[in-house]
């Protein structure tokens, strides 16, 4: 893909368009909420749940991003996350909350190193190595828990609880003011206030760290020479090699950081999303993280947006009597997809527009046909969304050119 250097005016126009789209989505959400009278759609409580559910996915997704930007497919995120949950519990038990966080990162990085050793040094197929790491991670965590946690206070062969976790902060004035506004159920204002109250109430320091890491990743990978070299290994390792980049080294660094991110995601699960360790508690979130990376188009802000969406779906699937709420979301999806179809039509992509509009119509018909979505479907929401997004957005996605391709030193010859 060639990319022309955008002039400042064009950049400004793109930003301007982005804001319009964000605003349009917000208005749609608020409209649907008011129309369907499903106020739980944007209450601070719901949005807080969504944020907490999103963070492990976000961290796994960012982990995947780091590896794939250097050309390594890291499907072992799930296993590295599992190692992270154990590391968080073990090190927090001995060295306090932040010791646990560092321990989780170290354990995840260890899983990343293993993946690097297999794929970079020995040239093993990335998928095979990743699947192996997932299996090894599950086994290792079971073994480690059994070996260490039995004698601990609050521990058992498969679980540990009662260790220190990072602090939660509530921003005093803003939290309660925003909560009050959100309870007024005003159009648009209350929805935004709900989001503000959601992120200012009992906000874990680890959540802040996770959000900062999005900016950090974007800055390092796109604004530093180090990041440029790392990405060049993912786009064209041969070219990077001819320019004197030590491709192996960069790939190793990337995959170790990737594992560290996944490990941090594990720590989040074991310290914020819950405060206890149970073997196998990741529950497929590593895979969802990988999906959020693809949907986010290998791009930090994209990963953030998609993991928030997955987190939201995950959060509402746990609410009581959520049938009517999910029902309202059908309408929301239908309207948003229609808007997207209109956008496509304007750009002249007629076939895509028709397909998307078709999906929207089906959703709308479904919305009209039933009063409430059966609970079997609400549990599937995150996965349906994944499939959906892959189907709708697939043409726009662009992965690093040499992602997953084997590379041996000296190929550039």
């Amino acid at each position, binding site marked *: 893909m060639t990319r022309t250097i955008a002039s400042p005016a064009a950049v400004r126009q793109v930003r301007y368009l982005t804001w319009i789209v964000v605003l349009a989505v917000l208005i749609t959400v608020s409209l649907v909420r008011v129309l369907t009278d499903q106020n739980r759609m944007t209450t601070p409580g719901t949005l807080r749940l969504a944020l907490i559910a999103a963070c492990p996915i976000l961290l796994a997704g960012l982990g995947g991003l780091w590896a794939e930007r250097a050309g390594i497919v890291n499907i072992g995120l799930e296993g590295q996350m599992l190692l992270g949950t154990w590391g968080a519990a073990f090190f927090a038990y001995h060295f306090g909350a932040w010791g646990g966080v560092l321990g989780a990162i170290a354990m995840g990085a260890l899983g990343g190193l293993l993946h690097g050793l297999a794929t970079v040094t020995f040239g093993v197929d990335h998928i095979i190595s990743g699947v192996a790491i997932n299996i090894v991670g599950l086994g290792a965590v079971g073994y480690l828990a059994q070996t260490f946690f039995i004698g601990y206070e609050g521990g058992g062969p*498969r679980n540990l609880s009662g260790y220190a976790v990072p602090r939660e902060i509530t921003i005093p004035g803003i939290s309660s003011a925003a909560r009050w506004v959100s309870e007024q159920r005003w159009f648009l204002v209350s929805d935004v206030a709900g989001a503000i109250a959601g992120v200012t109430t009992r906000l874990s320091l680890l959540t802040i760290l996770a959000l900062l890491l999005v900016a950090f990743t974007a800055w390092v990978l796109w604004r530093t020479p180090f990041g440029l070299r790392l990405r060049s290994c993912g786009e064209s390792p041969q070219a990077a090699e001819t320019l004197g980049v030590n491709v192996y080294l960069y790939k190793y660094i990337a995959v170790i950081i990737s594992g560290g991110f996944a490990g941090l995601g594990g720590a989040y699960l074991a310290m914020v999303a819950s405060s206890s360790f149970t073997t196998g508690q990741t529950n497929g979130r590593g895979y969802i993280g990988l999906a959020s990376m693809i949907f986010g188009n290998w791009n930090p802000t994209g990963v953030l947006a998609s993991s928030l969406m997955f987190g939201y779906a995950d959060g509402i699937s746990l609410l*009581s009597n959520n049938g009517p709420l999910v029902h309202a979301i059908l309408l929301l999806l239908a309207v948003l997809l229609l808007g997207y179809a209109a956008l496509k039509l304007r750009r002249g992509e007629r076939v895509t527009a028709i397909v998307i509009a078709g999906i929207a119509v089906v959703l709308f018909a479904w919305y009209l046909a039933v009063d409430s979505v059966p609970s079997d479907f609400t549990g599937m929401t995150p996965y349906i969304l994944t499939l959906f997004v892959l189907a709708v957005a697939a043409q726009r996605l662009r992965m690093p050119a040499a992602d997953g391709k084997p590379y041996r030193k000296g190929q550039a010859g």
Partner: protein
Amino acid sequence: MRHLTKAAVLVGAAAVVLSACGTAADNDDSDNNADEQQQCEAVELEGDPQVALAYDVGGRGDQSFNDAAYAGLEKAQGEFGFDGTEGEASSDESEEVREQRLRGFADDGYNVIVGVGFAYSDSVDKVAPEYPNVSFAVIDGFDPTEDDVNCNVAYLTFAENEGSFLVGVAAAETTESDTVGFVGGVNNPLIQKFEAGFKAGVEETNPDIEVVSTYIEESDPRGFGDPAGGQAAAEGLINDGADVIFHAAGASGIGVFDAVTSADLWAIGVDSDQYLTASPEQQPHILTSMLKRVDVSTYDFIAAAFDGEPLSGYTEFTLADDGVDYSTSGDFLSGDLITEIDDYKQQIIDGDLEVPTEP
């Protein structure tokens, strides 16, 4: 190469989705067909009883279901003096893995085998005919093939609805917001039985109280091993106004305790007396626990085997025979409340009060 990643994600997603289609237990048909099962001859064990315990997802150390089974094993060990063995389950395992575990035990000479949890129903049903001289039990189990009864299988079930009724009374008398919550691990008939009993108990005490309930997973057994899901579910109920939350979610329940602890509200434990195993910060928030005496059933089954009369067919453990109960550790229930609960308990035992099994 994009296809590679995409294929990989699809494989991952498929694994997640497919495992969700796994074991949807159907406990409906556990209606007493004990009569027809009486015709079974007692299993002839070869040699001394050798006991093996096959755990469910969550495994030993879940401070709940599996630990209770282990307590029963320990008690029997103390009494009859045998070694016994245990097998751990992992959260993603397939039917074949469970069958292999059972066959492994049987081939190693274990002839008293307990499958802990309904997930073993199908595998035991398949493996049992191959080993006619081995006595199997499935805790919470059901016979998936009603017409073809295995005489060497015992299904140990509980009247969870009755025990849940009692903690429902406790919840109704404790709530100040007139809203109480229920978190189930997996939305199957077995866990719905807890919800039904709990709701009935609340309603009997005070019909004005609202019960809000949610399930962590629809059919994926991993709902019993996901503390993050438990915490999120409980926080959702707290947002709905619930101030007493009863969970039937195995190891995910630890997350429920976390949520009520940080919100300074009440939780009700399940299966074993969870006040005793909770961390010191959580203890002041565990009102009571619905006891499901998995230990009693495990012990009874093992003891019967040592007496030379292995159990067979359905055996339900109810309030009347201490199969289910409630706990008072922590002394959070007042004397009056205990009197009230015990009064309901007597009514249920006497048959004056019928507790529903479906919500």
